[in-house]
């Protein structure tokens, strides 16, 4: 007969071991709870897109990491985890409303100036494929900085939280990445 513990008991044991610094138990635990967290987020915020769901999931995982000492190993894990998910979702909702109150959605408006060249509709933004290729050739740190700050448009603080890099390091990596991209694109234009 199968004597394996109930799933929640298993998770509680993993967390108890993680609290003692067991890295393997912690990774196993996080991998086990991530689908549940994702499910909870989708169930409560069905309107979120996949990337937004993933953002909230990552925020919950970071929160679990930050307050793991508040978990009492004698109690079941899921109510503890669900409470964190619920509150982080509420925080995300409040942040969304706050940002909405301070930001105005604007359609792509034509920008015109008196000078004829400024009104040219022939102007292009360059070759997106060349840009994508150039980004792939960047060193990992610079590529990550560009992807997070320029493509996903995260704030420096958010990107710092995700990568563990300091804000200063992110700024430097972005600056160097832009310079490298500029050189690479100029070189490809000249060919």
């Amino acid at each position: 007969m199968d004597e394996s513990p109930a799933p929640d008991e298993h998770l509680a044991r993993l967390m108890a071991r993680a609290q003692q610094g067991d890295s393997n138990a912690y990774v196993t635990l996080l991998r086990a709870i991530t689908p549940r967290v994702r499910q909870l987020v989708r169930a409560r915020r069905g309107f979120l897109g996949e990337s937004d769901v993933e953002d909230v999931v990552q925020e919950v995982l970071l929160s679990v990491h930050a307050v793991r000492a508040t978990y009492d190993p004698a109690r079941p894990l899921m109510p503890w985890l669900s409470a964190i998910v619920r509150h982080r979702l509420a925080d995300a909702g409040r942040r969304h409303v706050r940002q909405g109150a301070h930001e105005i959605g604007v359609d792509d408006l034509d920008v015109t100036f008196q000078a004829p060249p400024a009104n040219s509709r022939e102007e292009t933004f360059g070759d997106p494929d060349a840009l994508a290729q150039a980004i792939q050739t960047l060193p990992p740190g610079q590529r990550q900085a560009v992807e997070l700050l320029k493509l996903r448009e995260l704030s420096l603080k958010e990107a710092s939280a995700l990568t563990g890099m300091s804000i200063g390091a992110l700024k430097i990596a972005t600056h160097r990445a832009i310079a490298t991209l500029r050189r690479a694109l100029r070189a490809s234009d000249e060919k």
Partner: protein
Amino acid sequence: MRTDELIDRLGRDVTVAQPLPAPGIRTAMWTVWAVSFLVVVAVMMFAVMSSAAVTATPLYLVQQSVALVTGIMAARAALASVIPGTSSRVWVLPAIGAAVWGVSLLWGGVLDLQASGTLGVASQSDWPCVVSMTAGGLVVGSPLIWMLRRGAPLTPGLTAFLAALAALSFANIEACLTRPHAFALTVLLWHGGTVAAVAAICALTAHRWLRWPDLTTR
């Protein structure tokens, strides 16, 4: 960053994180500190002024006891509120305590009216008590804030309000010892007003000092 990468990074960063003691135990630890503060204040005050300055009527003792119990219940509720999964109704017991405290002071006002023919509200202003309670609350409440910041700030406003109520309940006793009042309604208005105002300020500013711990991974 992909979620899998984040998990690997968090796994690499994990260190020993001893579980926090239960809220009841943490409340007991804080209560020892708060009561010690009161004892020190009482000893200092009785050393410089006659103990007869405080008229320990049964109602006065009831009022101070209720303030003490309210403070302990509020501290326990605040400490429980930073533990995920705790009931969201942690505020009920301290609210009942605060209500009983208010009623006991109102009853004292009724007795004052019968005995002296006045509620005494206009005869005493009490700004020194406001200062004394705020300073005392800061001394009593600082360790509580430190303890709360080790938890999860799920409801910062409520947690901060309860913590302020806890600290100021003890500070109220300190103020009643150091500046005895002739009329109960003065205590209700000035001490109660101080508790309400400081707790409201704490609740409104809680998001600044009760934040989620640093979420960056090293």
